[in-house]
């Protein structure tokens, strides 16, 4: 990575979903995973837009998968985190944890 940049919220969510899905990380499961875990829908267009951005930053890699008739003969694109991506994800998570620590409001407890 060229400079130090914070991951945006969508980037953070998409990277976590990619990590959770492992070898099955392509558009539909990534979107479904985010919806299932956060309760908020992320449009596929938004998922792909974020994936493109992450790939440009060198945080994920892509590879073309199989094309099926159900997909109109179009290939899937699978994604996985790079080592830079994994490091960035860890640091972001560490930062969020550090900032959240001691904030009782986040636990639903009164001040």
């Amino acid at each position: 990575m060229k400079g130090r940049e914070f991951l945006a919220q969508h980037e953070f969510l998409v990277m976590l979903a990619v990590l959770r899905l492992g070898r099955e990380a392509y558009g539909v499961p990534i979107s479904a995973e985010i919806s299932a875990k956060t309760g908020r829908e992320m449009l596929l267009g938004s998922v792909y837009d974020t994936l493109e951005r992450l790939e440009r930053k060198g945080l994920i890699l892509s590879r073309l998968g199989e094309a099926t008739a159900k997909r109109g003969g179009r290939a899937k694109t699978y994604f996985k985190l790079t080592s830079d991506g994994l490091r960035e994800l860890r640091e972001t998570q560490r930062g969020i944890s550090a900032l959240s620590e001691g904030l009782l409001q986040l636990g639903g407890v009164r001040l």
Partner: protein
Amino acid sequence: MTSGGPPRFARWLLERFGRTLRLGSLVGDLDEEHADGRSRAWYWRQVVGALAVGYSRTLRMHSLSFILALAAGCAVTIAWQFANNLVFPPVFHNLWRIRQHAWTAVAVVHFSGLLLSRASVFGLCFVSAWVVTRVHRAHQRAVLVAFVLALTAQHIPWLARLVTDLLGNARFATYLEYEIIGVLFQGVFVLASGLWAIRTHQFSEMNRSTRWLALLVAGQLLAGAMIFAVSRVLDLSPLRPFAQISSLVQFASIAYLALLLWKRPVPIGPDSEIAHPQTN
């Protein structure tokens, strides 16, 4: 499985106007989900969302040069209007006197002035479209369409005024008609000029129909300018219906030329965002 295929128009819109690098995979994902039971409404929502996301990203990345391009085009137009108001009014004045002495030297000068006035209008349209598409090279068609819309929008107050006047007096119908034709003509001419300016092929490499149509349009513009000048200098009222028909034929020809130029495939160039992704 859902009955029937995915919405074809939605898919066409996405394939034609989508801006993601992984367009094929995105469309494949949507088709797969639709085949697995997602509704047509879901498909449409995803397509609209994907288009909105793509274009808002493009706008964020290129908004400055996009706005600069529009501003440059408008500046050229305003500068021309200012110069035009200084140079050409004498040509249009006292035409009624010349009509009494047609084909005198003064009449010829006025005639030439009217031709020059018309030529400067077409020249301005071409130059302004050229400037706009050169300032913002990343999305030349998009900025060109935005410029045409901006130019057209400038006429809205005047058109609204004419419509209001028309409610009180029927004679304003003619003015309104001329104004609408003028606005449409300007819009389509600027569009065709811009598309011509950003064409990827030399004239000799273009297909025969486009080349002939371009020559026909050039001829029509020349003939139209002549008819305009003659009818103004000599006040030949019988020419007016002919001039109107000529304008409509010109409009149709230019619109068709714009369509042919639009349909020409544009290869991804060195300035394209797709070819050279930028990190934002």
